[in-house]
């Protein structure tokens, strides 16, 4: 149910784009209106979600410490895994965001007879990293459609990504990697029993959607060719706010664009916001310095306390008998 509904949703999106352009000829809607709308939803939605998190304070200093604290000068302090200040936190966040440090620790727990064993389990880390880095490179590569002249950085990236020189148009390495990574991520969701048990429709949908985007992109580049010059004219038109609507681009292009628009519009309202959330995660972005620097809780309020006076009032005689000094006679 969760799986099929997600897959069907993506198929429906493909059909909508195909019918909308191939049959109904709504090129302006699918080439201009929807991309603009999706972009706005993404930008505003992303900001809204971040601000919503921002409205909740961080009342306590709760970093998860994963290494030796800064204490005595002769004990080696783990500056990254247990940061004591901003520099360490920045280092920790960089490792976390760019290299998925925590996921790199992943272990596999296995029961062998009456014993437990812990084995290395780096595949999830590798698959996740492969997907995210490919995604980033592909995103940056697409800047060649939005910038004129194409910056040398983008050209260089393009060249690196296609240095194998297989086929024409030259095969991008990231195209292969991202498909493999997405299929791996989908496969573990489908076939690892625990992961399947915890998965929701909102876990499958983005995977199918991304696979749809990647597949349509690959089809368009390598098989169902479209005229790249027209594509760039459309893309440049969008970013110069002078949209033109070429009608001579195949439906595969509009399917690709519509799926990407769907991803943009879906992004802020879904788990994909982990992309923004990671920056705000208090167990990672705080320094473990709460004994040195007082962390302020903005809603700290006075509470009822059982005072010493009340305590002594109750136990005075017993305290005196035991030789414990008291305040009042």
């Amino acid at each position, binding site marked *: 149910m969760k799986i099929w509904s997600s897959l069907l949703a993506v198929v429906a999106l493909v059909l909508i784009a195909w019918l909308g352009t191939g049959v109904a000829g709504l090129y302006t809607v699918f080439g201009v209106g929807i991309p603009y709308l999706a972009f706005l939803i993404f930008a505003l939605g992303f900001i809204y979600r971040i601000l919503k998190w*921002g*409205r909740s304070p*961080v009342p306590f200093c709760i970093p998860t410490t994963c290494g030796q604290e800064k204490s005595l000068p002769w004990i080696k302090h783990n500056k990254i895994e247990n940061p004591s200040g901003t520099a360490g936190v920045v280092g920790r966040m960089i490792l976390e965001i760019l290299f998925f440090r925590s996921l790199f620790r992943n272990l596999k727990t296995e029961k062998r007879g009456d014993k437990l064993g812990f084995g290395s389990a780096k595949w999830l880390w590798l698959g996740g990293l492969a997907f995210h880095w490919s995604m980033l490179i592909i995103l940056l590569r697409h800047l060649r459609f939005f910038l*004129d002249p194409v910056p040398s950085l983008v*050209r260089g990236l393009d060249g690196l990504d296609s240095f194998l020189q297989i086929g024409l148009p030259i095969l991008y390495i990231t195209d292969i990697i991202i498909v493999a990574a997405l299929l791996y991520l989908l496969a573990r969701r489908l076939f690892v029993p625990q992961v399947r048990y915890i998965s929701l429709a909102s876990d499958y949908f983005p995977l199918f959607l991304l696979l749809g985007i990647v597949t349509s992109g690959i089809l368009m580049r390598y098989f169902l060719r479209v*005229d790249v010059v027209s594509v760039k*004219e459309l893309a*440049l038109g969008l970013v110069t706010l002078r949209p033109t609507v070429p009608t*001579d681009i195949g439906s595969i292009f509009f399917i690709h664009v519509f799926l990407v628009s769907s991803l943009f519009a879906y992004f802020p309202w879904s788990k994909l916001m982990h992309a923004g959330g990671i920056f705000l995660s208090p167990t990672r972005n705080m320094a473990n310095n709460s004994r040195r620097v007082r962390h302020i809780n903005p809603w700290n309020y006075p509470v009822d306390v059982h005072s010493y006076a009340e305590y002594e009032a109750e136990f005075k005689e017993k305290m005196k008998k035991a030789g414990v000094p008291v305040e009042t006679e």
Partner: protein
Amino acid sequence: MIYGGKKIFAGLFIFVVLLISPFLANIGKADAQPNPSLNTPAINALATKQCVGSQQFMRTYHMQLLNQWRDQALRHGEYTYVNSQGQKFTISLENTCLKCHSNEQQFCNTCHTYVGVTPYCWECHQKGATQ
């Protein structure tokens, strides 16, 4: 009230700037659509200005056709290409394509530069070899 507002707004500022950077980068730039030139002596001398395929086909598929030509010529020793009209052409970049399109700068490069493509034709072929 946004707690940790300075950092959050700084982060969002960077996010927004990155997001709209393609818009910003294009401000004040005229649309410069590529206009590949067909003005070469060889083309001007043609009675009917017709390439090996239709203009639409060539725009979209020329790289695949060239790739196919290369494989046919170098791997299978076939040097004749028959197009959809039944016309025959000699498979040769330098002697067929470039014979007409001798203006690489004004023809090939206009679009390639526009969409950021770097063809690797010239890693083997020599520019202007026919001249």
